[in-house]
């Protein structure tokens, strides 16, 4: 069994805006590209050009249809990106028999030390979010590293020291920062928009937060907006009369 740090100096994580995520998968593939080439074993693909193709991804986007109550309410589609939430009480760490899974003291990032990973898969079972994937080629557990090899990387310009999924997100739905600092931009965003924990009942205290979609299909009823369409005339002749009068005033 592996122990968690009592306290981490920072709580680095992601804030994902479900109101603006269009489900484009840009984050998914950018993650695949960076993490195939960088930290640890490459993210492999099986049956890459055939049937039952599958591969290792550290971040995936799922889509859910939501049917609001009410007879007339239109169904909605919510895109839901999901990766490791870097939980404060990460069950994937405490379950690890070799110490390969660990949570970094300095920033709270949950990582797998691939050298010590025996591919037993206990951590994936323990994670309530399904955020870990066992790489089929290498036999080691892969998971989001929060691009630990980018965010401090002195070979990158400072502006680029963010996870690759954040850098690439076209609609700006992904934010990165220290959620342990209540004055950070991400913490303020969470406060402002009612950011939520994913499945808080699991008691994992996830660091990543989700901003809920704003209410939809709430254009005011026409009765409220009617003054903006008050007729100036009922037919063409009356309209031309209005036009003459109005042009006089211009």
């Amino acid at each position, binding site marked *: 069994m592996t122990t968690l740090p009592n306290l981490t100096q920072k709580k680095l994580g992601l804030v994902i805006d479900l109101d603006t*995520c*269009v*489900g*484009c*998968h*840009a984050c998914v*593939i*950018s993650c695949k*590209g960076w993490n*195939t*080439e960088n930290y640890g074993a*490459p*993210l*492999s*693909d*099986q*049956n*890459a*050009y*055939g*049937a039952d*193709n599958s*591969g290792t991804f550290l971040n995936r986007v799922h889509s859910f*249809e939501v049917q609001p109550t009410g007879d007339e309410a*239109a*169904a*909605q*589609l*919510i*895109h839901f990106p999901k990766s490791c939430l870097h939980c404060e009480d990460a069950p994937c760490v405490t379950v690890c028999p070799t110490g390969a899974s*660990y949570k970094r003291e300095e920033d709270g990032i949950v990582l797998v030390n691939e050298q010590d990973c025996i591919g037993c898969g206990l951590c994936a079972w323990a994670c309530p979010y399904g955020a870990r994937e066992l790489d089929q080629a290498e036999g080691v557990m892969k998971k989001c590293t929060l691009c*630990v*090899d980018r965010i401090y*990387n*002195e070979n*990158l310009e400072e502006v680029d020291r963010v996870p690759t999924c954040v*850098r*690439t997100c*076209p*609609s*700006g739905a992904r934010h990165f920062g220290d959620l342990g600092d209540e004055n950070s931009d991400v913490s303020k965003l969470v406060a402002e928009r009612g950011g939520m924990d994913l499945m808080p009942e699991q008691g994992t205290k996830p660091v990543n937060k989700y901003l809920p*979609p704003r209410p*939809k*299909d*709430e*254009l*005011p009823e026409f009765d409220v*907006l*009617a003054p*903006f*369409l*008050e*007729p100036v005339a*009922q037919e*063409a002749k009356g*309209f031309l009369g*209005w*036009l003459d009068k*109005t*042009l006089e005033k211009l």
Partner: protein
Amino acid sequence: MNQPKIDLSPKVSDEIRKTTCYMCACRCGINVHMKEGKVAYIEGNRDHPVNKGVLCAKGSAGIMQVNAPSRLNAPMKRVGPRGSGEFEKISWDEALQIATDWLEPIRKENPEKLAFFTGRDQSQSFTSYWAQHFGTPNYAAHGGFCSVNMAAAGIYTMGGAFWEFGQPDWDHTKLFMLFGVAEDHDSNPIKMGIGKIKARGARVIGVNPIRTGYNAVADDWVGITPGTDGLFILAMIHCLMKAGKIDLNYLAQYTNAPVLVNSDEKSPEFGLLMRDKDGKELVIDRATGKLTPFDQPGVKPDLSATHRVAGITHRPVFHMMAERYLEDEYAPEAVAERCGIPAKRIRAIAAELARVAFEESFELDQEWTDFRGEHHKTMTGRPVSFHAMRGISAHANGFQTCRALHVLQILLGTVEVPGGFRFKPPYPKPATAHPKPHVGVTPGKPLDGPHLGFVHGPDDLALKADGTAARIDKAFTWENPMSSHGLMHMVISNAHAGDPYKIDTLFMYMANMSWNSSMNTRGVIEMLTDKNEETGEYVIPRIIYSDAYSSEMVAYADLIFPDATYLERHDCISMLDRPICEADAAADAIRWPVIEPDRDVRGFQSVLCELGARLNLPGFVNEDGSQKYADYGDYIVNHIRKPGIGPLAGFRGENGDKAGRGDVNPKQLDQYIENGGFFVEHIQAGANYYKPWNKAYQDWAVGMGLLDSPQPYLFNLYVEPMRKFQLAAEGHGDRQPPDHLRERIKEKMDPLPIWYSNEDENKGDEYPITALTQRPMAMYHSWGSQNAWLRQLHGHNPLYVPTKLMQTSGLKDGDWAKVTSPHGEITVPVLEMAALNENTIWTWNAIGKRKGAWALEEDAPEVTKGFLLNHLIHELLPPKGDGLRWANSDPITGQAAWFDLKVKIEKADPPSESQPVLPAIKSPVGKGPKDLAWKVGK
């Protein structure tokens, strides 16, 4: 704690090479990270005007595209029957000699025997130049199949279009309404824009039968009945006009609303605009009450005054609009059921448009001077913006629908104003500033001008002396007079039928015509393989095809030129073509070989440079007959289109310090590469709004070489060229339409937007469901399936069926259904979707693949469960009993009406594979590896 020590600053790459993406048509800037000479990682370029650092899934997956096993690897000639996929590899010299031997006699005897069509080509100013010098009238790209309605309606109406030719004013707009927007073109800028305005709390309204992508994040979703968008828009116009919520000042100053129209039904000029001897539109000046050209200093055009001369009353366009759109037929209550939108909701949306446009208007503290010389202290903002795409244009009423949307924008005064819709250079550019179509063929000589353009009346049609079509696709004929992009989708069927004439060689580039780029896929395959019974020769005798990948079309060609991938060749995203400009800047870009091909392939444009020289085409040889351009890179730098103007606008002049106009700069490509692969020239403040009428902008555009001279113009609420075709149909003039088309021209070529249903033509009573396709954001056409990463996102394309229809058809997720149209049937897997118009079914486009293509295994899900709706669509409408077959296209532009598809659906026994199944083709490139673990560095 004993944490392992990890390297937090690993070396990212040896080198970054900056070029332009080509995983779709968006043209983002990319940083290609290289390790040991190989592509290691691709990310967006932060400095680039299009994507500003972001990159979509396709872009990041480029590494899987340039290494795809489906890449063609050598020139080939066909050795088995067409469609077998049996080829023999040959040398480039042999390939070019074969092509020369085929094409040389054609050019000498009758250049029209070559039909050259270039699909999703991004080098149309170059490929059209080649075709023009060959001398054939038969050239176009894929616009007629794609979205000419959008482009033509925009340019005829306001001198610019949606698509990537304009953009909402993301910084100021407060209400953004998008119609029928799929998720590909201009995709990163739209995603960035939506993110930006939603962060500001602006409202997004999505009008689309399907609630995915942008519509999923829209604040309000209008799940409209497909094909009725025009009616919905005209109802909003009705509401806004009736309430006087229109921008009268804008209409008077900048549009042809005040221009006088001949209103005498007996006059041969009935419906034409009053013009002076120079052709300038005439208006009544409110200050003087006198008739005057619209553009004179101090003129305040009168929206209301009429004018009587020689016994003929002339009324302003605006009177005609009031008469038409205030009619009850356009009241929300009259259209609600048809559109599938409650009348109250139509009114609410119209009211919201009015509220934001007029109650939330604002002034930008920016002085400017208009073309009449009037100085304005501020710029008035109307923060309502619109965007639309294929969803409204791929219908047979698409041109008029796109027109209606532009008229709505203009009535609200929201085009080219702060907060509204803005053009990107080289637009604004009115239809009259574009070329007209040219079809003057002389054996052995170039064509007499550019192929494509804008017609302004019957005189400009592309007809031979006997009245038959001059072009193989019958573009610019009475059947579809304003077909500005040509009709790629009719080329194969017309060539097969020998109507209007037979051709010898069909030459195509990046156009998957035997699969997802054709209506009636199986029929097209039969045409491509059909033989003349007497001679045993193919009816279309020769087919040359160029593609980088083993697409379905490869098997149907006789000669293959293998293209290089986008990281292996030069390209030019040119101001002469479809540049990457922003509303505030002119910009263009290049691609350059960031890696060298590891196969015997060449960039197609470079091949044309050599083929052009072998054929002795004037633009491609020096005076001594030697090859003029060594390759496409050489052409990009050294070609001069007009004095001082070449394919690239940046780094011109001897020292590379000139923008727009300037001499050839031999180091131009190097300077582009140093600058990140692109060039940007910003428009100064004060010139960047009101562009069609802004003196400072017009002068800037002339300086940049975008315009030859200042050309301020009026927006055309009323499109006079359409009236000229109607006049001909009414019997006026020498050039007369055939009788069977007269009524249709009179009805459909209305110079003010109308709406008409296409349901009856598509047998909507028997086939009550509309079937649509969409592009996923992570795939582009058929390219994604060869990409090992992207096909894990979209390897399946179920048929999405709305909840109620699932229930009434007795369907459950995973069941199979037979879908029948008047033309054919398919049997495919279904999945329920609730966020969908209740009479619409849909699937993702071009996921389905033919066995043997794209280097996929024959049991890949794209092959076994994937499918195309194309099998259900015909290029002709079902017979209606008049003895004629009418095209399944817009009668104005010829745009393929593939979103008019009507079907019925019933539960089916699950077959072993999606139906129909076509026999396998032999892969010319073999199959891909089983597993991948792609790490380039150590």
